[in-house]
């Protein structure tokens, strides 16, 4: 799985399909992890955002 696919799966789980679509259309393979982590940290807290640390 690519980083984008992993981010998409996590964003779908945390928020929903529209946010997953956001990863697909507005983020790149390089910046998706940092962007998603920032959003999740701000909205759901740093504990949940730790899930992004596992994305390779």
């Amino acid at each position, binding site marked *: 799985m690519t980083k984008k696919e992993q981010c998409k799966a996590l964003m779908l789980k945390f928020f*929903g399909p*529209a*946010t997953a*679509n956001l990863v697909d259309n507005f983020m790149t393979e390089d910046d998706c992890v940092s962007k998603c982590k920032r959003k999740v940290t701000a909205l759901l*807290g740093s504990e949940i955002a730790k899930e992004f640390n596992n994305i390779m």
Partner: protein
Amino acid sequence: MKLMPKVFLPIILITLIISVTIGMTISTQIKDNALERAQHVTAEYISSKAISELTPASFSSEDYRNQTDVFDSFLEHIRTEEVIKIKVFNLNHEIIYSTAKENIGTKTDSQNYENAVNGKISVIVKDPIEDQTNIDLVGYKQVMEIYVPINYDGKIEGVIETYYRMDYVNEVISKVTAKVLMLLGLFSALILITVYLILTFVVIKPINALIVVADKITDGELDTKLPEAKSNDEMSNLVASLEMLVASSKFKINVGSETKNEAQK
């Protein structure tokens, strides 16, 4: 002011300005082209008829009053619906023939005559006659005077001023211009309708749908179904942001309840 009039009114204004500008440019161009064509064709016609039916002597004769019959006959040959009368000049600025006989023998200082003597077809378009009595009297609303140099073997021998009745040309110009303006108007209306439909279905309707959803969410209905966001446009971006805010609100409410429960225990 709502979004639709805010966006649509400037578009209507711009379309109107562009349409009027294009309409005026096209109608001016149509008129110029029609007049230029009329001048050119008439000058060619008069010149060729003069060369075939008159001689250099007809223009250079000292006794030009005896040439009246020659020019009367020439006028009868060239007279059409548009070519209504002529004036003939020799190279000494003298009018040697005119349908108004009292003008014969008088001199002209017209710049148009000078131009014609120098080989250049010269034209003056008279102002249209407005009064119906005068129109009935002279038989036309507007005339164009075309000064045609008459050239025999490369030498100009005289000038024929042709009175060209413009009524028919003006009528044609008006009809063509009206058609062009009508087409332009239809085209503008079509553009405006298209823009209106695009604005309605691509911008206004999705925004209104989002407003309804956002309104429900702010009323506490956090499980309200959000519009689908499958494309990569701004609206999908907005739906995603709303979705994240809803999830965040739900999360914070849950965390708050859990903390409260733990505190109560």
